[in-house]
């Protein structure tokens, strides 16, 4: 018995030149969980996943995947891990059937019926060439290729990027099927918050290479509260209100999102708003966006995007 974690990263740090793309990441993915890794582009998600899979040497720190140091993953270890790269890379000249043969010959286990089901779900013709597939279909093929090898741990780098709603649904269904009620572990990075809320039971949020959230979805949602105050946003809020994640303008008012609000926090909000604060309900999406918006240099940009 190794540990109860499928992935365990300790102080994982990666510099590219002078910039730390990933900084002191302590990430633990419990066995059997489905974890959504969220973050803006450039937050270090892909870099983290590449380090987990042993394709990039960490500048310092270490990570273990299925109890094995990522830098020393052998063929047997890789057989237990499924990995789809960003953008669902396939060799364009291969037909779907060639892809299957190629994958089958390089993995010890192969579940042909699972492969068949998955590509059917994405409505893919097995004799088609990979280069003629739509993005959604390519996602389907690469997912099918990864799943049919029956890995214990699935690492997906932005599987939903650019997918149409139907393909997204197929992707979610496939993942739910695959995780098999907690017998397998999934780590996926994504930008689609709805899907993550649905599919994942844990959420991890990276901002500027740092891990700010690593918790179950419930705990995450339950620890964040928001108030609306009748004042324009100001940078002093972050000094005045402990635990302030983000303050964003909304129709002349400001929505203040706070983590772990206690009486002290409420008192601070009262003080700031001159007793005109209103509790507002907050969704998972709002909570995540509050974190992600912190990383934006310009707050107005965020407002202009209409979220």
């Amino acid at each position: 018995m190794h540990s109860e974690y499928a992935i365990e990263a300790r102080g994982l740090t990666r510099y590219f030149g002078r910039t730390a793309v990933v900084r002191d990441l302590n990430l633990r993915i419990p066995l059997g969980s489905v974890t959504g890794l969220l973050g803006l582009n450039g937050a270090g998600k892909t870099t983290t996943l590449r380090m987990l899979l042993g394709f990039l040497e960490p500048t310092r720190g270490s990570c273990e995947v299925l109890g094995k140091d990522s830098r020393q993953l052998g063929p047997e270890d890789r057989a237990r891990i499924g990995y789809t790269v960003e953008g669902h890379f396939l060799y364009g000249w291969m037909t779907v059937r060639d892809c299957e043969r190629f994958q089958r010959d390089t993995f010890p286990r192969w579940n042909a019926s699972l492969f068949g089901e998955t590509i059917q779900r994405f409505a893919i013709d097995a004799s088609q060439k990979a280069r003629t597939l739509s993005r959604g279909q390519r996602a389907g093929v690469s997912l099918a290729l990864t799943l049919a090898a029956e890995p214990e741990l699935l690492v997906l780098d932005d599987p939903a990027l650019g997918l149409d709603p139907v393909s997204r649904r197929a992707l979610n269904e496939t993942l739910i099927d695959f995780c098999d009620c907690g017998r397998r572990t999934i780590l996926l990075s994504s930008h689609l918050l709805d899907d993550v809320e649905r599919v994942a039971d844990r959420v991890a949020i990276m901002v500027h290479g740092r891990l700010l959230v690593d918790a179950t979805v419930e705990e995450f949602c339950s620890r964040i509260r928001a108030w609306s105050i009748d004042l324009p946003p100001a940078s002093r809020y972050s000094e005045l209100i402990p635990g302030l994640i983000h303050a964003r303008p909304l129709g002349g008012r400001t929505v203040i999102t706070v983590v772990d609000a206690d009486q002290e926090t409420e008192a601070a909000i009262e003080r700031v708003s001159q007793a005109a604060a209103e509790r507002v309900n907050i969704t998972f999406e709002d909570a995540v966006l509050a974190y992600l918006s912190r990383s934006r240099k310009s707050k107005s940009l965020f407002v202009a995007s209409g979220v």
Partner: protein
Amino acid sequence: MWTIVSKELRELIRLLPVGLLLLGVAVWLSLPRGIQGSPNAALIACCAGLFAVLLAAMQGFFDFSDRQRGFLFHRSLSHARIMYGKVLAALIVYSIAVVLPLGCMAIYFARMGPEYLPVHPIQVLPILAVCLAGFAMHPATLFTIDREAHWLGTRLLPLPLAIAGVFFMAVAIASREYAFDTMFDAIAGVFFMAAIIAAGIPSAIAIGSILLIGLFIVLLLALQREHFARKLVLAGGAVTVVLTAIIFGATLLDSLISSPSASYAEYGIDEEGELWAFQSRYEPSENGYNALRVPVSGGRVESDRAVNLNGTLPEDFNPSSGSNLAPLNANRQTVWYQYGGAIGRKQVFSVPPGIALIYEQGSTPPLQGVVSRSGFHPSAAVVGDPFTGPAFTEGMWASSALTAAGYDTLWVDRKGVYQFDRERGTITALVELPVESATVLVTEDFAAEESADDAKVVRLYVETSTQAYLFKLTAATGEAKWFVSNSENRSRPLPELQAVEERTLPRLPKSLRIAMLGMSADGSLVAFAAHPSLQRAVVANAPGAEWKMEQLMGPDIEVRGSRASAYMVALTPPAALLVGVVSLLIYSAVSDLPSAVTLNNPTDGGVPVLLLVGIVAMVGWSVLVWVLGRRRGFSTSKRVAWSLATLLAGPVGPLLLIALYRPVHREACPRCNHLRQVDRGLCPHCASAWEAVQSEGIEIIDFETRGNWAAVRRTEASSSAPSSR
């Protein structure tokens, strides 16, 4: 793995037409069109190597971007097996691309036959072997692309090794007996120091080279965090880089040395029997394939003082040459055929077993005849396959016969000297040498007496690897045909020769590395050292059996204190300078030659400046390495080691350092505030680990750290809240 091979084959097969085109064009350009064609084995080898690089580059292009790497390498196959698969697939495609055009070439040769071309289809094999050796470029390139390194220099290290390896393979295949010579020259001689070569002290060269190269191998193996095989490849690459830097240094050093002549000094005897040293330039003759030697300057050699080579030759100076005029390169074997020699329009080619094929330019078919052990045959058909028939001579020194004052009648090999009469088709042994198994013919020379309408060989000098001989030849009766060097074909009565007197001579000192050997009309032999700056001569008197060694020219090394030479001193590896000068001094002390090095030049007074420049450069390079090492996060002991090594290696040190290590970013330690490398766990100043990044107070981490950070945040908040208000 076969899955990988077939996938790679499928991708690489697209490149096959490119390879076939590339090599096909190279082969087509290299087809000899006539007996004197210029086959270009190097072109084919380069094209093959280029194709290997192209294959690796395409494989790298297909599979080494981040995404593709993730897709391909995340399988139940080890990284090494996938790489083997790639190499194997590339080898298959490469072999097809190489074998097809060269096969066509062999067929072409077979169709032409010896009547038209002095090339046997079998002779395609060496170039095929060179091409296959050129495949080494593929794994080197692939390895270069595959290495995770952010500075290109580190990645490129395997390439110099592959290039050097392929080069050596090419030399080894083209000419086995010169391969080790070449390697030795490359590593120790040519690449090291022109000055030491001139002094001719192989052991000192070897020791110097081994010291310097060994130092870097040890440094590399000890310091690189790599697998052993990769370490070796990198070390090899680094050594090649070091050698290249030393060539650079030696080339510069060479120009430090005052050399009175730019080309080899040559030697001749004038009509009065005086010995002259002169410098010539070579000009192409009107028929296009024979070089003419035109003396440009020279002076009379007197045995006890330096000759002034800057003097102009007398107008009527026309020394009768005792030296072998055939350009040395022409004697060397190439991959294609052994070029025998040329007199007028006549060409002689010998093939490895020792059969001589005589061709004449312009006639159809060009083959005039074949000389085999049984005599002269007008057609190749008579001897059967002239390329594979019994050897005519053993270890034939191909140029011997034709360049001896115009005779095509004398042939020398390691067993003896033969006279060949074409008219009668006979071969007579003039001299037989006692053959020991290890005997190799080293050199030979003929002394000829020439008058307006007569020319005859009177003395013959033969040196084998075991013994040197001097023969006096006397004329018997008979006639032979001879040819004058420029196009005219003349028939002259020529006496048959007979060796009457044989004298066994002491061998010349090997360390002289003789480039020139001459014989005067009175039978004196003069040997010159190879380097132009060291015009040492050894004079032997014909009646006596002892070599008399004399320095005929000025001192070997005169260091001049010009600005240019200051740059050169700064750029030359100090170890090379030291070993060179010291070995010259030692050699001068133990040998019976006069002093070789003159470090002080009274008219200039620049030597102290040069010494100063040298010392400043040594220290400067070391300091640079110290600073660079700091940026790369070396420990103090490692920096000391590198700086000491750089004291000896000069600019090679910083170059290697930059090539091998990339700078590591440093940040202030949160505890002691000293700068520390970001890739080290512990701070070298205060030994603290990196502290967790400062909490922003908004983290939601539901593992055991949660309680802690929440508590921390509360206390922070409560302590900072009053002050902020």
